[in-house]
C-alpha cells in the first residue's frame, strides 16, 4: 500500500512539474512576444547538450527527431519518431494531448502538416533546438514557417536551469544509485580484473538500481594522464582507478568523480589528493547565489596553484571545473571563459579533477545544489582517496 501511494505521488509530482514547465515557458513566450515555440529534441542524446523537447514533454525519444509545438493558446502537439514507439510516448507525455507519430524521413513534412492544420505557420515563432540539431533540420524550419524563427534557446534554458521538484527528485535518486554503485565497486573490484569488467559490472549494478543511461569513463594507471573509456588493462597493485560515474533517471543525469588506489594509498598520493579536496571545498564555499562562475574557478584553483601547480590548472591540463548535465539547460559551466552567474536552485557537478605531475591525474567531484550558504553536496558522503583490496 505504501509503495503504491509513493508511486502515485511520484506520478502526481511529475505531472505537476511538467504542467508548470509548460506554463512558465508560456509566460516567457508572452513576455518575448512569441506566439509559438518549437522545442526540438535530437535522438543523438548527450548529457552535454540541451534537449528542449524532452524538457517540455518528459519523453526521451528513440527516433532521430522530436518536437513539441507549443502555441501560446491551445493544445500543445508532440511530433515524434518512430511510429512503433507511439504507445510509450502516449504513456510518458501527460501534459500534451496530441501525439503524432511519424518516420524520421517525414519529420519535417509532418511538422508542416500539423502547423497548417492548426493555423500556426504564420505565428511569431521561436525555436529551441538544443545543441544537437542537425543542419538539415535547422534549415528546414524556414520551409515550414511563413517567417524565419527566432532563437528561443536561452528562454527555455533560463527556465530549466533552476531545478523543479521533479528534477530534484530524479537527481537525488540518481545520486543514490551512483553512490551505491561506487561502494559496490570498492567491495568487488580486485587485482586481475580488466578495466572493462570493472566498468561493466558497475554499469549493470546501477542498471539494477534503476539507471536508464550512464555517462561513464573508467580507467586505471600507475600514473594517469586522464580518464578514458575502459580498455583490457588489468588492475594491479599500485594502480590508481579513476571513475566518472553519471547515471540517469528519467533523463536527469548526475555525476560523481572518484579515485581509488589498488592497495594502500601512499602519503604522497594522500597529500596531493588533499589539494583537490581543498579546491573543491573552497569552490563550494564560494558558490553562493550571485557569484560569477569565474570566481568559483579561481577559488578552486587557488590551493592547487599555491602548492606550485598553477600551470596545471589551465588548458590543456584542465578544461572545466564543473558543469550542468541537465538536458534542459547547460548552465552553469564552471569555466574561466564563461560569464554564467550562479543562482539558487542550480544543480551541477563541481569537479577539480586535476593532473599533478607527482601522482598523475586524480578525480574529485561532487554533484551540488546552490543554496544561500554556498554549494551543498547532494551525496551522502563526499569523495576521498579510497582503497581497493
Amino acid at each position, binding site marked *: 500500500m505504501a509503495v503504491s501511494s509513493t508511486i502515485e505521488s511520484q506520478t502526481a509530482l511529475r505531472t505537476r512539474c511538467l504542467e508548470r514547465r509548460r506554463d512558465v515557458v508560456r509566460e516567457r513566450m508572452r513576455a518575448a512576444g512569441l506566439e509559438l515555440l518549437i522545442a526540438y529534441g535530437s535522438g543523438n542524446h548527450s548529457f552535454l547538450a540541451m534537449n528542449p523537447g524532452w524538457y517540455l514533454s518528459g519523453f526521451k525519444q528513440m527516433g532521430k527527431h522530436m518536437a513539441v509545438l507549443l502555441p501560446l493558446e491551445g493544445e500543445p502537439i508532440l511530433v515524434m519518431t518512430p511510429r512503433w514507439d507511439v504507445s510509450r510516448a502516449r504513456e510518458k507525455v501527460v501534459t500534451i494531448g496530441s501525439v503524432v507519430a511519424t518516420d524520421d524521413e517525414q519529420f519535417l513534412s509532418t511538422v508542416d502538416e500539423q502547423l497548417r492544420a492548426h493555423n500556426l505557420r504564420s505565428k511569431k515563432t521561436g525555436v529551441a533546438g538544443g545543441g544537437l540539431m542537425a543542419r538539415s533540420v535547422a534549415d528546414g524550419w524556414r520551409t515550414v514557417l511563413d517567417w524565419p524563427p527566432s532563437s528561443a534557446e536561452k528562454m527555455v534554458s533560463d527556465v530549466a536551469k533552476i531545478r523543479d521538484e521533479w528534477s530534484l527528485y530524479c537527481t537525488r535518486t540518481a545520486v543514490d544509485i551512483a553512490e551505491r554503485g561506487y561502494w559496490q565497486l570498492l567491495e568487488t573490484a580486485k587485482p586481475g580484473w580488466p578495466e572493462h569488467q570493472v566498468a561493466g559490472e558497475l554499469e549493470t549494478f546501477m542498471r539494477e538500481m*534503476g539507471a536508464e543511461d550512464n555517462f*561513464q569513463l573508467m580507467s586505471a594507471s600507475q600514473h594517469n594522464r*586522464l580518464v578514458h573509456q575502459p580498455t*583490457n588493462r588489468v588492475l594491479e597493485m599500485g594502480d590508481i582507478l579513476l571513475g566518472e560515474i553519471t547515471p540517469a533517471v528519467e533523463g536527469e543525469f548526475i555525476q560523481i568523480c572518484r579515485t581509488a588506489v589498488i592497495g594502500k594509498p601512499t602519503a604522497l598520493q594522500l597529500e596531493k589528493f588533499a589539494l583537490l579536496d581543498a579546491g573543491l571545498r573552497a569552490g563550494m564555499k564560494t558558490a553562493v547565489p550571485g557569484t560569477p562562475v569565474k570566481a568559483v574557478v579561481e577559488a578552486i584553483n587557488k590551493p592547487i596553484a599555491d602548492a606550485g601547480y598553477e600551470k596545471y590548472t589551465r588548458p590543456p591540463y584542465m578544461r572545466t571545473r564543473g558543469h550542468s548535465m541537465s538536458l534542459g539547460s547547460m548552465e552553469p559551466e564552471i569555466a574561466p571563459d564563461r560569464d554564467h552567474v550562479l543562482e539558487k536552485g542550480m544543480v551541477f557537478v563541481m569537479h577539480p579533477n586535476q593532473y599533478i605531475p607527482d601522482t598523475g591525474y586524480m578525480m574529485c567531484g561532487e554533484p551540488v545544489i546552490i543554496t544561500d550558504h554556498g554549494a551543498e553536496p547532494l551525496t551522502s558522503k563526499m569523495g576521498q582517496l579510497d582503497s581497493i583490496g
Partner: protein
Amino acid sequence: MINMEPVLKRGYTAWDQALLPADEFTERVSRVRAAMRSAGLDALLVWGNQYEYADFTYLAGMPTAGTLLLTLEGDPAVFTGGGGRELPFQRTLTWVSQLSAAGPMPGATLKSALAERSIPQGNVGLVGTHLLSAATYANVTENLSGYAIREFDTEFRMLRASKRPREVATLRTALRIATDAAQAAIQAFNQGATTTEAMVAAERTARVNRGRDIRILANVDSDDLRPFEGLSPARRTPLLMWIGVDYQGYWADMAATSASTSGSQAERAVEAMVAAATPGARAAAVAAAGLAQLSSTAARDSAQDYGLGSGIGLALSDWPTISPASDAQLVDGGLLSLRALARDGDDVSFANAIVQVAAGGGQKLEPR
C-alpha cells in the same frame, strides 16, 4: 533497428590489432585513392562523430569523432574536435600517426594542412558534411573557398558497401558477443527473471565480453519493443528481445525470443529475404519476398513498422534499407541484417539473420 542512443559509447575501447592490423587500413586507403583519382580529386575530407562514424572509421580505424584528411600521396592525418587532452589515449586507438586537435572550427587548420601538402588549390571531396553544425560547415567552406569542393558521400558509401574479409571477421566477433548475451537473457528469463532483469543479464554478458556499445530493446510492460527505463516487475511471455552489439565499431544485431521460432511466420519471412539477397537484386524485391510470407495485413504492417532490415557494419543501420519503397540495388559482398517482427493479435514471432550478399543468395554469418 531504431533504438535508444546512449550518451556515451562506454564499453571496451581498445584497438584489436590482431583482427584489424594497420595493413588492413593501408589497403583501404589504396582503394579510396583509386576512387579519388578516377573522380579527379586531389584531397578528401571525411567527417565522423560519436553517433555516425562509419565513413571516418573505415579509414581512421578508431570509432570516434574527427576529421580525416587523405591526399593522393603521403600519410593521412586526423584532426579531433577536442582540446587535445584526449590525444594520448586516442593515439592508442588508431594506426594514423598524424593526430592533432583542431577544435570545433577546423576550417583554418584544414586549409593549412592542405597547403602543407602542396595542395594550394584543386579538387577536394567532402564526406559526412551533414554531420556538421551550420556554424562548422560555414567555417569549413569559407576556409576552403579557394578549392573546388564537392560532396563525395555516395561514391564513398559504395566503396564501403562490399565488405573486406577482416570486416566480416570483426562483425562475426560482435555477433558472438550478441549471441552469448541473448543466451544469458533467455536463460535468466526461463529461470523466472522479469523482462527487465533479462535485459540486464544480457547487458552484463555483453559488457564483460568486450562489447563497446550495447543496445537492447524488449517487450517491457507492452507488446511493443521498448528500451530499459528502470526495473519493472512485469514478465511478459514470450520474451521478445532485440540486441545490438558493437565491437571495434562493427555492429551485429539479433532477434531473441524465449519461444521457438522454428517454422514461424517471421522465420519464413527472413529465410525468403535471405534467398533473395543476391548481387544486383533490388532491396524492394528482397522486402517483397519477406512480406509475401506473412499471412495477414497486421503481420505485414508490424514487420514494416519495425523495419525489414538494412546494411550493417560500421553502422547499425547502414545503406541499403530493405523496404518496398527502396530503389537500392544490393552489392556483391555487402552485409545485411534482415529481420521480421510479425504480430497478428496474440500470434507474434521475431527472427533475424545477418547475411553476406552472394550469387546463390545470402550467406548467413555465424558467430566467431
